[in-house]
């Protein structure tokens, strides 16, 4: 009985205990984000508990109340929505930019490759965070801007992965055969090379998510990211810092939420990469 490569990839993934655990954690966070209205008693901007502002965690308010009288648990849970949405959409945009550029530079080589590589070099000498801070400050931040900034720096990794894969497959016999049968380069790239690059694309996609989430948190932490009252963990950490000596819950919960989510996504992505492409293991 022959088994598909996917079967072996899944088996390799299942052997990686840390990655599986992180996958479960990540799934829980995603479900919490999707069903946020069902598991929280109030909305993220309802100042329902002004008289109890800054109350410590209790049975009624799992994570306490913030300085503006909002249930902190609700804010943390809705914060997951912001973080995950930005992570996922930035990763999607990264893939959308990275695939065509990687495929073109890998397939054609020569001038196209030179051009794309210089473009990548351009992005590698400018630290992403610095550029993001500059762009964020110039545009005034906001949800869409952050997604675009994250994608602007996220596509490089996807592009390099796709380029390497396409370059390796370009010389294979089946591509030669397709060329001999008169297939156009566009057809070969769409029909043969990109489908063969699915695993690096998935890896690039998953690894772009935590990077975007970190970028959003960092920008929001500096006050040029997602504007309040939309809850963002980075922004909440910044506020929490001012209260940390007396009201620890304001600082601890957003920090923990961000750390756990980013770590889980990274380890899940690492596990996925090792499972899909064992040759990359440990890099």
């Amino acid at each position, binding site marked *: 009985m022959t088994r598909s490569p996917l079967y072996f990839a899944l088996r390799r993934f299942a052997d990686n205990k840390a990655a599986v655990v992180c996958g479960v954690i990540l799934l829980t966070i995603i479900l919490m984000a999707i069903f946020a209205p069902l598991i929280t008693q109030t909305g993220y901007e309802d100042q329902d508990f002004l008289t109890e502002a800054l109350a410590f965690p209790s049975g009624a308010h799992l994570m306490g109340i913030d300085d503006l009288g909002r249930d902190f648990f609700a804010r943390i849970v809705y914060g997951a929505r912001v973080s995950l949405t930005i992570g996922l959409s930035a990763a999607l945009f990264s893939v959308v930019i990275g695939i065509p550029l990687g495929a073109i530079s890998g397939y054609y080589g020569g001038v196209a490759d030179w051009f794309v590589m210089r473009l990548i070099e351009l992005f590698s*000498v*400018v630290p992403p965070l610095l550029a993001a801070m500059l762009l964020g400050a110039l545009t005034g931040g906001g949800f869409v801007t952050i997604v675009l900034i994250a994608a602007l720096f996220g596509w490089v990794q996807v592009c390099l992965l796709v380029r390497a894969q396409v370059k390796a497959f370009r010389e294979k016999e089946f591509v030669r055969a397709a060329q001999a049968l008169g297939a156009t380069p566009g057809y070969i790239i769409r029909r043969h090379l990109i489908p063969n690059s699915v695993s690096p694309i998935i890896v690039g996609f998953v690894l772009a998510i935590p990077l975007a989430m970190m970028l959003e948190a960092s920008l929001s*932490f500096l006050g040029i990211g997602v504007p309040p009252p939309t809850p963002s963990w980075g922004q909440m950490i910044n506020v929490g810092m001012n209260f940390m000596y007396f009201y620890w819950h304001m600082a601890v919960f957003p*920090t923990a939420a961000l750390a756990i989510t980013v770590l889980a996504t990274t380890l899940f992505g690492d596990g996925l990469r090792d499972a899909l492409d064992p040759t990359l293991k440990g890099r």
Partner: protein
Amino acid sequence: MIRYILGRLISVALTFTVVSVIVFLMMHAVPGGPFDGNDMPVNDAVKAKLNASLGLDRPLHIQYFKYMWGVLHFDFGIPFQSPGETVLQLLARAWPPSLILGGSGVLIGAPLGILLGIAAALRRNTWVDYLASALATLGLSVPVFVISMLLLMVFAVLIGWLPASGWDRPYSWILPIAAYAAIPMATYARYTRSAMLDVLNKPFVTVLRAKGISERRIIFQHVLRNAALPMITVFLPMFIGTATGSIFVEAMFRVPGLGAYFVSSINLRDYPLEMALILMITFMFCIAYLISDIVYALVNPRIRVGGRQ
């Protein structure tokens, strides 16, 4: 070799020029100028005169060349937030804390990371390896301000041993340096581990073992030397890369360094200072990549003919 260096030099110079043009255009593409604020309104005639005296009424490309000509003579203009001094003087004042922070962070973090990486590679799949991997993942994937926050919560709030902010006495340097050292440590632990494992799996190591050479000699004389090669390329860019991390560490611990000024220049739209900082960091990155490319070509002759991979 000279041809290779020249090629890299031209490529780096091109990259730097393009970055400077893009940053310059971006700053000037935003509507509004420095005299549009509401807190101190000026009438149109005065505004026009001010703009003319600063050369802001000239076409953009002229402004760019004028600016870059100044930069070549170390003239970055005057920062809006403290008009009494030049950008260069302000930077000279802000350098020392950042240098102490970054320097000691890397000097403490990098050796620790290398030791961790070696230990993890030699004791593969034991608790040492898992601990090293966990630390490396934590340092690489969690934003540095989260690490700072954890350190603050434990050592400043919970135990109360160390001050949470300030830079006035060396005592208060400990926490920011510890937070800062996490990045080089994590980077080095990961790179060292994978470089060591790469070399350990090479056939020549098996041959050395078959010849009966002691394990210690194999590790120290052969494996470490070969594993050090790829690490050269990481060192300089990483050294400067920590400059980005320093922004957050300095913001968290209220250190009056370059990072703090970068944040304030962004909040205050202080274009001359912002531009100077970005150009400086990009320039250092370019030089770092150039040097590590050249060093790598010197120690690895294959690169000279094959080009950069």
